[in-house]
């Protein structure tokens, strides 16, 4: 083998992923080539070293031994004892006075802060009420406009309906008037004919009365 195998080929060789024939070739080359032998030896060294880290297991969480636990319990009890002793000691009176003074000061500050808070709250409530009222008025105005428009619409509709009814009645009256007038004309014509006929009869009667005297 004239050329050196590539590192990729050596990786297949080292991890047994090459074909038996290729493995044999590389093995032969390794036997002859000191340079490759040195390189492969380096890689093998890394591989061997990696085996030092065997399957990792999680370590046990730290658990105190029984003696340690008893010691911790004793320390807690001791601490409690010291605390009780300090509370009942004469120096405690001075501490209580200081505590009472601090408490009074804190109460005063708290009362002042509460008053300030109440004032601010009332002011904010008034502002909110104003805003709400203005909004309500705006809303009522809008509602009123809406209602007015609806009423006008209803009135218009009613007016149109009334107008139609009135026109229909007028038309009917006109028709009746025309019929009546026609009837009247007929009566008048008839009456006129009657009068003409009566006058002619009167004229004839007058003529008859005059003829015997002649």
């Amino acid at each position, binding site marked *: 083998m004239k050329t050196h195998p590539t*590192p*990729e080929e*050596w*990786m*297949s060789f080292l*991890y047994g*992923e090459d074909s038996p024939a290729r493995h044999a070739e590389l093995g032969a080359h390794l036997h002859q080539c000191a340079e490759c032998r040195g390189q492969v030896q*380096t*890689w093998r*060294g*890394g*591989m*061997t*070293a*990696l*085996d*030092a*880290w*065997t*399957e*990792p*297991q*999680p*370590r*046990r969480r*730290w658990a105190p031994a029984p003696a340690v636990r008893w010691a911790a319990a004793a320390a807690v009890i001791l601490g409690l004892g010291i605390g009780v002793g300090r509370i009942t000691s004469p120096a405690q009176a001075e501490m209580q006075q200081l505590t009472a003074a601090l408490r009074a000061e804190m109460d005063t500050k708290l009362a002042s802060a509460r008053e300030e808070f109440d004032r601010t709250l009332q002011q904010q409530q008034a502002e909110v009420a104003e805003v709400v009222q203005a909004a309500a008025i705006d809303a009522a105005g809008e509602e009123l406009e809406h209602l007015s428009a609806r009423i006008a619409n209803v009135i218009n509709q009613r007016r149109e309906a009334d107008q139609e009814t009135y026109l229909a009645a007028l038309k009917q009256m006109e028709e009746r008037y025309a019929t009546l007038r026609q009837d009247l004309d007929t009566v008048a014509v008839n009456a006129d004919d009657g009068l003409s006929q009566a006058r002619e009869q009167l004229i004839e009667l007058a003529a008859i009365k005059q003829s015997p005297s002649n």
Partner: protein
Amino acid sequence: MWRVRTDDDAEAFAQLVGRWQKPIQNLCTRMIGDPHRGEDLAQDTFARLFARRKNYEPTGKFSTFLWRMALNICYDELRKLKRRGEFSLDEHDDDSGPFDLEADGPAPDSQLVEDERAEAVRRALVELAEPYRVVVVLRHYEGLKFREIGDVLDIPEGTVKSRMSEALSQLSRLLNPVISEDSDQPNPRPRSNERLLI
């Protein structure tokens, strides 16, 4: 996985976890360098696997899907640790050593030597850049073929081998003292690269 995906079969999922918990935990531990975090991350992986079971396409290999998911969780964790500046080499130098001491194990002095070597390897792995570390962990410890690693990482097989050779060179330099000690040992421990059958 198909039963888990289609039927939400809890029993099948439990079997799946039982089969894969250890390899995934080992992967996470070696990627992060912390057995406890590895354990937590493995649990996160299975939680995410169940949550995203509908995303699994049966056309691909389940193992590839799972390795990739676990690695993504590891990368997220590494990013978080680096952002918080918590990813350090001195994370496990507590009194109990890196691992549990087995009652029926080797004598305390030899156990101590083994623990020191293991800690040196852990540190060396953590020092490797992530692209090299992941190849070493998947090939050397989890026993995946170079081609399978290429599938998981979505890179060519040649690139995987190239990174492996570079990683081994770096590890050889970093672990030179451990290697020197090992060369003095008459019977070095055999490698544990069991193949994971899918």
